[in-house]
């Protein structure tokens, strides 16, 4: 709570949250509040520039770009959220468990994690749609599985750090149960780290979902998406070179707001906890391999 209050004092947090609220509103009510039907074709106005009638102009079929972007928000945002939830559920739980379930589980979960990190995200997502069906739900589930290592590494590193703290030893000596230690002394401290990772992962997932919809993966043509608008803009670039600006801005604003949020949570929690382990652990190739750390309670057979 203290961290949230401290983060809210920063202007950057408030701006980022404001922008994300607008995006959330568009995701919920974008198609209902859009000025035009996003698939209605106005043949008299093809590739029209911005005007009073069409604020962001029209595309090659005369469809209103503003309406398409507003209506396309839901699919883009929900798909990104799906990937984050999948990655969080898999990565954070196994990351926490790897510290407490013993060496075999630790070794296995680390190797699975290394394996997932060798799969190229977009190629894997495309391959999964070839097998499970060409829907965005399948593709973003695959992306979520590949986001899991991000959560796994960060959660594991943070859990290791806090599980080795002296107050955990004291709690053990006082006879606290393992569940109590995890809930009160570890989970609560690990939360800010996971929140930072979730915000960064949401930004990454949004970039991936716009790439996939740009490639035409998982979307049936008339349905609007941010990436889909960009892909039709590309085909008519010589006629309407300004067209990609609006959809690109939607992606950049959302991703930028999520990154800013991640940064401000990290900065606000850094003052509180001795040091939230930096995301360095994600990129740390060697130090975590092998059994350098072991399990935190290995030295305390009494625990």
């Amino acid at each position, binding site marked *: 709570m203290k961290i949230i209050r401290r983060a809210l004092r920063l202007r950057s947090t408030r701006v980022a949250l404001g922008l994300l609220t607008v995006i959330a509103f568009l995701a919920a009510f974008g198609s209902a509040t859009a000025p035009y039907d996003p698939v209605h074709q106005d043949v008299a106005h093809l590739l029209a520039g911005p005007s009073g009638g069409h604020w962001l102009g029209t595309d090659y079929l005369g469809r209103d770009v503003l309406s398409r972007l507003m209506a396309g928000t839901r699919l883009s945002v929900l798909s990104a959220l799906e990937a984050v939830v999948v990655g969080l559920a898999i990565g954070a739980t196994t990351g926490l468990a790897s510290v407490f379930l013993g060496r075999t589980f630790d070794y296995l979960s680390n190797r699975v994690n290394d*394996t997932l990190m*060798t799969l190229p995200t*977009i190629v894997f997502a495309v*391959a999964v749609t070839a097998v499970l069906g060409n829907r965005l739900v399948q593709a973003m589930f695959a992306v979520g599985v590949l986001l899991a290592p991000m959560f796994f590494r960060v959660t594991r590193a943070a859990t290791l750090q806090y599980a080795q703290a002296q107050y955990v030893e004291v709690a053990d000596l006082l006879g606290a149960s393992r569940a109590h230690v995890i809930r009160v002394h570890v989970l609560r401290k690990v939360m800010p780290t996971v929140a930072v990772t979730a915000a960064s992962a949401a*930004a990454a997932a949004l970039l991936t979902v716009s790439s996939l919809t740009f490639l035409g993966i998982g979307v049936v043509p008339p349905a609007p998406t941010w990436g889909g608008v960009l892909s039709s803009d590309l085909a008519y670039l010589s006629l309407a070179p300004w067209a990609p600006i609006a959809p*690109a801005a939607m992606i950049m604003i959302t991703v930028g707001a999520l990154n800013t949020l991640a940064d401000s949570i990290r900065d606000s929690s850094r003052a509180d906890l001795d040091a939230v382990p930096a995301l360095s652990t994600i990129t740390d190739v*060697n130090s975590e391999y092998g059994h350098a750390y072991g399990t935190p309670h290995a030295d305390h057979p009494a625990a």
Partner: protein
Amino acid sequence: MAVTVEAVRPGGGLVTARPRAGSATARRLGRWAAIYVPVVVASTFVTFLLGSLSNANPAASVLGDNATPQDIVRINHVLGLDQPLLVQYGRWVSRALQGDLGVSYFTQIPVSTSIGQRLPVDLSLAVLAISLALLVGGATGALAAVRSGSWIDRGVTWVCSAGSTVPAFVVGIGLVVVFSVTFKLLPSSGYVGLTDDPVGWLEHIALPAVALSIEPGIWVARQLRTALVDVLDQNYVTGAVVRGLSGRRILFVHALRNAAGPAITVLGYYVPVIIGGTVVTETVFSLPGLGQLVLNSATSRDVPVVQGILLVTSALVIASNLFVNAALGWLRPGVNR
């Protein structure tokens, strides 16, 4: 992506004496094997499983619509599809190791042939993009670190934050608007082989490579800046200044080598992202690479081709991880002992 690396490895010290060859090298190789062998096995198994999970029925597609159930059983036996999963996996891997990735369901062209034709496009794109990222990102990061706290530093930080919100294909579209549509300097699509026409190759590959290099370039700049600011604060740098060494010598001989680790590590970590970016960038510039192939094969559910591409790209990722580790070992010989 706001990933900051603050230390590559705990306890990583300065560059000191080189480790003795022999047993140390053997131990290091053993440790690498313990890490990479399971990873290689598991990632090939995932790729193999994708094929078994698909609903595609190879026997039916080989025989056509008039196949009797007996024929399907016979063909399944010929193709080895009635064997246990692990036996099938073993066969698939041993064939793949011999360069046999199967044939496309639809064109009957061997998968290795189609991949072999297209891989050079992706490799030249990725290598050029990574070199650009290292050069430009490295120079920018070093400049920001040397002038840390100045307006240059703040500008670099700001540009990196803004740049990391733009997907590679959007950068590509922007480059097409500026260099192809407006000024008509470079072609917006197509590809010429390097050996056919080096100048034409560069003209066609330059814009996609720049588009692809932005993201990794930003990571390199950020990591190098952070690490170099720390290194320049170390006692041995102060010592070198006191000894009267020139600033250039200190930066290039002493500081950069010690600060390069995080940047190279992060570059290795993002190789899968770069390969994914290649697929999307190829689509923007209509390059005849693996991206077009994987997209077409995925829509037509041509599973052997998709499997082959996934296998080759993950092999590239693992190979580049090994390369990154070797580079780190060379940069900081003390660390891996």
